[in-house]
């Protein structure tokens, strides 16, 4: 049906514009990229608050030494589920939601290339997470072996073990289908004249991310399937007693896992590269270098995986190799940061909420980058590994990195999606509270790690009390501040001030050539060369 609409779209746009299905059918049978994008984003939002609530419980137990609330096993379930929900339920669906909304608008396509697949890849997710979340209620409780699922510990899981693995299979299938859709849309549905090197950087970053997804999600599926057969069918892939090797799981897992961390961050690079030029009123500095930097980071992500496992006992040559390749990542990442700075240089800056989030991203992601370089230094990593220093590091790249990137994107495009400008003062409150509390939450964790506090423990030696309290206070503050976000969005939809095509003075890109909100079917007629030239991002 959607194909037909796309095909006939050219002769009667206006009549199609209001041809939305109504009621529940609109969502269950959705094939429209905007509706599916909205569903992805709402789903991601729900998961963000769910995963966040688990984090609040973790910080509650860690507020002071001694066990006040949870059994240690349940605490392990909390950390495991927090990670799985945030990574696979909040961040990845949020990116797919943004891709769904923005990529067709930005490349001048009438919809995603494969609308029914799009529907399928979204609707897999609620079932995957229903399965995963229901493990809280099965005998033995939710998975408690960490999101990294290392055997043999993971093999000790109870009823939750196969459920977790099937849930991961489903999430992986959803991601792969979503990634295929993105690639086909970008490669085949660009408007005439929208050459690859004219594409906005968000589209570029997603194209590369989609290839990463297709390359590594099957690897994860393979790894967890081997766990499953080890547990139920007598194989011994990871059991030394049968000739297997538990460390092999870690190699396979991190061969997925390192590209995965770039899957989580690359689209944020893209978004930041769109927002900063808009509010600096100046094109991005070094557009092509930005594309090559993302591509290099993606390539390097395949040859650094063992930096997550320097303590497993690798030969010297292996340690040196993975140290050097990991350090190399600093070069393209540096190029990106320098180019963002150069874009700000001699700009004409204003500080609306998307820009505030984008600037905080550059500052705080860079701090996460610094601790990343420190972690690459193998001898020092022998000290850092599996301590709170690592927790601080990856939360700096994931929270003020990825999450701020997603929020920056939502604040940037929300007026386009809703046709309303939101309450910017409230947005700035949300920003400042988030930016301050995120540092109160995660910065002290560097100290805790360096002072010797291991990660994934429900209780700690008393000298770690002070900074844990600070971290917990930051956590509660950060968590509460996030409630402003759905309120702001609701208020924007209900009471926002209507705006024109271009929500932001300095915004460039095809999406800003469309009305706000864009019609249900947009770009039924591809943009003309004149429109493309006006929308050029560099």
């Amino acid at each position, binding site marked *: 049906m959607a194909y037909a609409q796309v095909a006939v779209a050219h002769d009667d746009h206006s009549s199609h514009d209001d041809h939305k299905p109504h009621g529940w059918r609109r969502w269950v049978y959705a094939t429209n990229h905007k509706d599916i994008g909205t569903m992805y984003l709402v789903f991601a939002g729900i998961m963000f608050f769910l995963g966040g609530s688990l984090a609040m419980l973790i910080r509650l137990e860690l507020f002071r030494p001694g066990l006040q609330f949870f059994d240690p096993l349940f605490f392990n379930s909390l950390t495991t589920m927090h990670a799985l929900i945030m990574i696979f339920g909040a961040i990845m669906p949020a990116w797919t939601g943004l891709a769904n909304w923005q990529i067709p608008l930005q490349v001048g396509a009438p919809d995603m290339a494969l609308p029914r697949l799009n529907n399928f890849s979204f609707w897999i997710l609620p079932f995957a997470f229903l399965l995963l979340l229901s493990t809280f209620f099965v005998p033995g409780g939710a998975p408690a072996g960490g999101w990294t699922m290392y055997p043999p510990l993971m093999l000790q899981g109870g009823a939750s073990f196969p459920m977790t693995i099937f849930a991961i299979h489903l999430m992986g299938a959803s991601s792969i289908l979503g990634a295929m859709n993105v690639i086909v849309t970008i490669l085949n549905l660009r408007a005439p004249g929208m050459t690859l090197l004219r594409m906005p950087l968000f589209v570029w970053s997603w194209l590369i991310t989609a290839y990463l997804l297709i390359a590594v999600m099957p690897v994860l599926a393979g790894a967890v399937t081997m766990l499953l057969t080890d547990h139920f069918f007598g194989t011994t892939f990871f059991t030394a007693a049968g000739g297997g090797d538990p460390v092999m799981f870690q190699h396979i897992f991190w061969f997925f896992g390192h590209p995965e961390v770039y899957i989580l961050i690359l689209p944020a690079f893209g978004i930041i590269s769109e927002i900063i030029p808009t509010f600096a009123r100046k094109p991005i500095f070094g557009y092509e270098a930005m594309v090559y930097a993302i591509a290099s980071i993606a390539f390097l992500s395949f040859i650094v995986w063992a930096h997550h496992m320097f303590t497993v006992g690798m030969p010297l040559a292996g340690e040196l190799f993975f140290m050097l390749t990991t350090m190399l990542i600093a070069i393209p990442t540096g190029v990106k940061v320098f180019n963002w700075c150069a874009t700000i240089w001699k700009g004409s800056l204003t500080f609306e909420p998307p820009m505030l989030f984008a600037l905080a991203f550059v500052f705080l992601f860079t701090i996460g980058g610094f601790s990343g370089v420190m972690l690459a230094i193998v001898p020092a990593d022998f000290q850092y590994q599996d*301590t709170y220093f690592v927790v601080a590091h990856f939360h700096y790249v994931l929270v003020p990195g990825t999450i701020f990137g997603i929020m920056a994107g939502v604040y940037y495009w929300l007026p386009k999606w809703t046709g309303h400008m939101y309450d910017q003062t409230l947005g700035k409150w949300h920003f400042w509270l988030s930016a301050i509390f995120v540092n109160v939450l995660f910065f002290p964790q560097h100290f805790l790690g360096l002072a010797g506090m291991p990660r994934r423990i429900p209780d*700690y030696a008393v000298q770690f009390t002070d900074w844990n309290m600070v971290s917990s206070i930051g956590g509660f503050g950060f968590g509460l501040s996030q409630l402003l976000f759905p309120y702001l969005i609701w208020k924007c939809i209900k009471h926002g001030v209507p705006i024109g095509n271009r929500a932001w003075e300095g915004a460039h890109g095809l999406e800003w050539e469309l009305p706000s909100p864009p019609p249900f079917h947009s770009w039924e007629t591809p943009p003309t060369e004149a429109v493309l030239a006006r929308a050029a991002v560099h």
Partner: protein
Amino acid sequence: MMIRYAYSKLAAAAALLPLAAPVRADSGWGLLNMTPGVTDISRKIYALHMEVFWICVGIGVVVFGWMIWSLIAFRKSKGAVADTSLVHNTKIEILWTAIPVFILIAMAVPAARTLVDIEDTRNTELTIKVTGFQWGWNYDYLDDGVNYFSRLDRASDAARQLLSGIDPTTVPNYLLSVDHPLVVPAGVKVRLLITGADVIHSWWVPAFGLKKDAIPGFINELWFRVDPDKTGLYRGQCVELCGRDHGFMPIVVDVRSKADFSAWLKATAAEQKQAAANAPAATPAAG
């Protein structure tokens, strides 16, 4: 001293929150950094850590300084007009790709050197097999017939129970003390052969600078030589998630002078031999 005082005031303020904890004498506010440790390797690692840290601080000052300067200088509200021609500059782009290469080399060379030292496992004088299990450690002095288990001490174990009612601050070295510490001589290159009995654990004493995973079916090597004058107790923990009581399997190393160590080893070997002779056949050496 004044700063210390101010910090403890802060701690007291934090304690007024609903989940208040009593203010302790041994404040944790000053725990901000890694310690240099008590071995040659741990000091090298510490030096490396500080070198990389200061390089990062330097880069941070330059990059963040540049950014903050721009944010202040180029505000639209202050009449800044964008220079839209500034989109590309090959020279400067090559420069900021190349300079980091040299900085990275400056970090990689000492790191590689230290790594080579760490991996030099030759000429060790004492070998102890360390087995991690759920949830404790077994230490086996392979050449001397001494073998015992090391678990969380009773005081900590009582206090760490859910809602135990025991204030952890009243327990000496809460969660960081064991019933039987690993005893090693100072000034001797001690080699640990590390493995796991059930799942993966990881053996770490921060003051020695190193950690190594204890993997079932595999044997990992780790060595350390504590400075001859640094006898005493050193504490660490398991650092690889290993199940329910992962947070409760500490490591304590009792570093003694060579003479004290030999005496201890001899006495313990005799004791264990005696115990084995007295006990009915299948009883393990220690429980």
